[in-house]
């Protein structure tokens, strides 16, 4: 599966998951996820390739995804200031969703 297709599928699956499970915080979560995916596109493509080729383990991929979210939070700190950072509060939800979708998409094709 090529990375572009994988990323598109990831985005569409995330959208469905948010609608089904996080209706009450959907606008905020959707906004945060889009920011995250937009800022992380190139890295995500590279990590997906390394994960699908077996060079990164699931645990390593999770570590990297979390570090990327930390980086986005760091950038947010500079632009929005400390009190306005909300991304971190739903960090675990975001990572869980992304990881589950990636694993669901990649493991069967390995």
């Amino acid at each position, binding site marked *: 599966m090529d990375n572009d297709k994988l990323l598109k599928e990831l985005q569409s699956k995330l959208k469905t998951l948010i609608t089904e499970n996080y209706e009450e915080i959907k606008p905020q979560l959707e906004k945060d996820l889009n920011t995250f995916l937009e800022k992380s596109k190139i890295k995500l493509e590279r990590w997906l390739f*390394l994960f699908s080729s077996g060079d990164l383990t699931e645990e*390593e991929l999770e*570590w990297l995804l979390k*570090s990327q979210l930390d*980086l986005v939070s*760091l950038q947010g*700190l500079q632009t929005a200031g400390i009190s306005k950072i909300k991304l971190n509060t739903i960090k675990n939800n975001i990572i869980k969703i992304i990881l589950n979708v990636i694993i669901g998409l990649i493991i069967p094709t390995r």
Partner: protein
Amino acid sequence: MNHLKLKLTAFLIIISFLFTSCSSTKTALYDQYSYQKTTEIKVEAEKLMSEATSPYVLHQKEVTMLLLEIEKLVEYEKNKPNNEITFAMWKMLTDKEKNLLAAFFKRWETKETLSPAFLEESKKQVLDAFDLLIQYEIKKDKKSKDALLDLINQ
């Protein structure tokens, strides 16, 4: 004499404006020491992280020394007025429960060695975080200059 008094008054007004402006932006001024130390620490961290395909025990002493250096700088940043953002950024970088520098060393210690692919990717992440800190310090310099230019052009 009157001309001199007028000049002195104008100078005092500018200085008081400058102080008001600096405190109202609530951002610490650019600090050459912070910039230099952060850059040095980044270089040392990069060098040390590159060794993570070899056993952690061989580098434990260097990691401890680097973390001590960082601890001193974080303490310095903590006590600077209006410096909450830089301090918060350092806290993230040195939090073992996050996924940046301290967490990298924690993982290296736990796993003993790290895989080459993970090492390369995680190192980039940590270095990106350092770059954000360094760029933020530089921005403070620009903010200080802009504030001064605003005053001069008023």
